[in-house]
């Protein structure tokens, strides 16, 4: 009934977005490209933070690990291809390294809950970034290169527009899949009451680790592509606290734990900060902070939460009028 309509609307959106660079100038192509990147990050964070309720305050660690593994692999081992093909193997390596790292730290760290998990993730991101910056082999201090994969005849902003768009689509489909399957229900059960879920036979440990690893691999891939898009980067280009914070803020504003919330939140916040306030760089933090506080006080479920609530209230009024 509603299913074919939704699929049709989704396909139409994909087609429109795919054709969009034909009309947008280079500046707005970049803005939309950054939107794709940020929304995909928010969706990836949402798998762990939104569905399972494990708020990571240090997810930028996977952006950094992804970007550095791709670059170091490319420099020391090779890229196995030229042009766009040169991205394939380093990207796979980046995803693999992030997944392994996440699986490695998952066992001790996922035993912690709530604020402790949040702060420890922040700690992990600080520790890894300092190690990358200070251990010579990683070259975090002097910076690393990624050979440009952009084929001739295509502008870089168009090229990365499609790559980030594809990654956003991947993140979206993965989230959709998780939400619709047993996996998603298990994560929601963990968020609502982990002990009861475990008691009722949900394999909480397995699902938590899986969500953490999936989220990390996605962020790692995005981080590696981000590395390609900037070309040359140091530790502090990719291990950035504001990346971690944006993922949380965007989800919070749109609606945490929903499918469209992270995308809507990213669109709203980027529109306000990048388009409306692009000339007032020095008060970005102030505006973001004000919006965060206002959202929590006025609509705790984010934009989607507020919409759902008002729709329910309208339905209730209608039912009352009929009775």
């Amino acid at each position: 009934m509603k299913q074919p309509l939704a699929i049709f609307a989704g396909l139409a959106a994909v087609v429109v977005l795919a054709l969009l660079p034909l009309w947008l100038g280079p500046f707005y192509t970049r803005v939309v490209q950054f939107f794709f990147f940020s929304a995909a990050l928010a969706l990836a964070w949402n798998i762990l933070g939104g569905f399972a309720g494990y708020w990571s305050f240090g997810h930028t660690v996977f952006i950094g690990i992804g970007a550095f593994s791709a670059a170091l692999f490319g420099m020391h081992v090779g890229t196995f291809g030229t042009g766009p093909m040169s991205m394939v193997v380093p990207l796979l390596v980046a995803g693999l390294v992030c997944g392994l790292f996440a699986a490695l730290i998952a066992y001790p760290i996922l035993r912690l809950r709530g604020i402790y998990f949040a702060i420890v993730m922040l700690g992990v991101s600080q520790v890894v970034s300092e190690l990358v910056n200070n251990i010579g082999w990683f070259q975090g201090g002097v910076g690393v290169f990624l050979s440009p994969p952009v084929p001739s005849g295509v502008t870089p902003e168009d090229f990365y527009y499609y790559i980030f768009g594809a990654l956003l689509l991947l993140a979206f489909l993965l989230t959709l899949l998780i939400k619709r399957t047993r996996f998603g229900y298990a994560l929601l059960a963990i968020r609502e009451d982990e002990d009861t879920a475990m008691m009722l036979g949900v394999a909480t440990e397995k699902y938590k680790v899986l969500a953490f690893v999936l989220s990390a691999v996605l962020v790692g891939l995005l981080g590696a592509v981000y590395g390609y898009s900037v070309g040359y980067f140091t530790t502090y280009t990719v291990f950035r606290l504001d990346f971690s914070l944006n993922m949380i803020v965007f989800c919070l504003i749109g609606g945490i734990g929903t499918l469209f919330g992270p995308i809507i939140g990213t669109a709203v916040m980027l529109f306000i900060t990048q388009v409306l306030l692009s000339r007032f760089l020095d008060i970005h933090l102030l505006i973001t902070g004000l919006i965060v506080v206002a959202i929590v006080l006025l609509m705790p479920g984010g934009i989607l939460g507020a919409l759902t609530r008002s729709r329910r209230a309208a339905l209730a009024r209608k039912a009352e009028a009929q009775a």
Partner: protein
Amino acid sequence: MLLFLQTTLNGLVLGGLYSLAAVGFSLVFGVMGIVNLTHGIFVVAGAYGALLLFRHLGIDPFFAIIPIGLVLFAVGYAYQRTIIHWAISRASLVASLVVTFGVAMIARNLLQLTFGPDVQTITPSYSFTSVGLGPLRIDLVRLIALGASLVLLLILALVLARTQFGRAVRATAQQPLAAELSGLSVGRLHGLTFGLSAAMAGASGAIIGIVQPFSAASEVAWTLNAFIVVVLGGIGSPAGALVGGLLLGLINAYTAQYIGPSLTTAMMFLVLVLMLLVRPQGLLGHSFGESR
């Protein structure tokens, strides 16, 4: 050996400051269960306050503690009674985490707009005097700073343990409902606790201003330090803050001396992660934990 002793001394002095800066955070965490991400702002605001009073009125930072403490007490009280209370009653306890984070962003931006992004220091006439302790040297400022920290921590511990107000705060922390039924105004006590926390943070900021350079951006570091101190020492008590702070100061000093000054943050977080895995309630435990 001498180097080791000197490093230990430096670490303890630094640790005293960490303790004082963290004790308010610990109190609010213990009594209300709120992780106040605005805490670092109170510390930095105290430092800027001391800077203004010193530059324009010539007031010594150690005396500036009193006016700064009073102002921040009022700010903390008002902040808890309005924004934090709203966030908890309308959304949830976790929402207070996000709200305090948002307020910290606003406040950091406002501080940057007012004072500029530059790193500041307060330099009273005695800031380069040092005293000998046998073969060891220590800056006079740091010694007074350590003394002031210990005195303030002791006062707070006595207030909590011996006064009517302290008893009321502890009662609210252990059983909010029972405290309310016995006629205590829990809302007002929460406000007062928050005010006290902000005042202690401001006082520590005034002292930190003389000992270390600071800027609006250092608030993140002070909030995180407070969190680490609480995790190391234990939640809700001045003694826990003291143990955690001194330990953190020592870790910091030893790492800077023997491993490398650029690795101190990494080491601090490594210890934090290990501590959370081994003994998440901190060395001295949660002061009000049993009855929760």
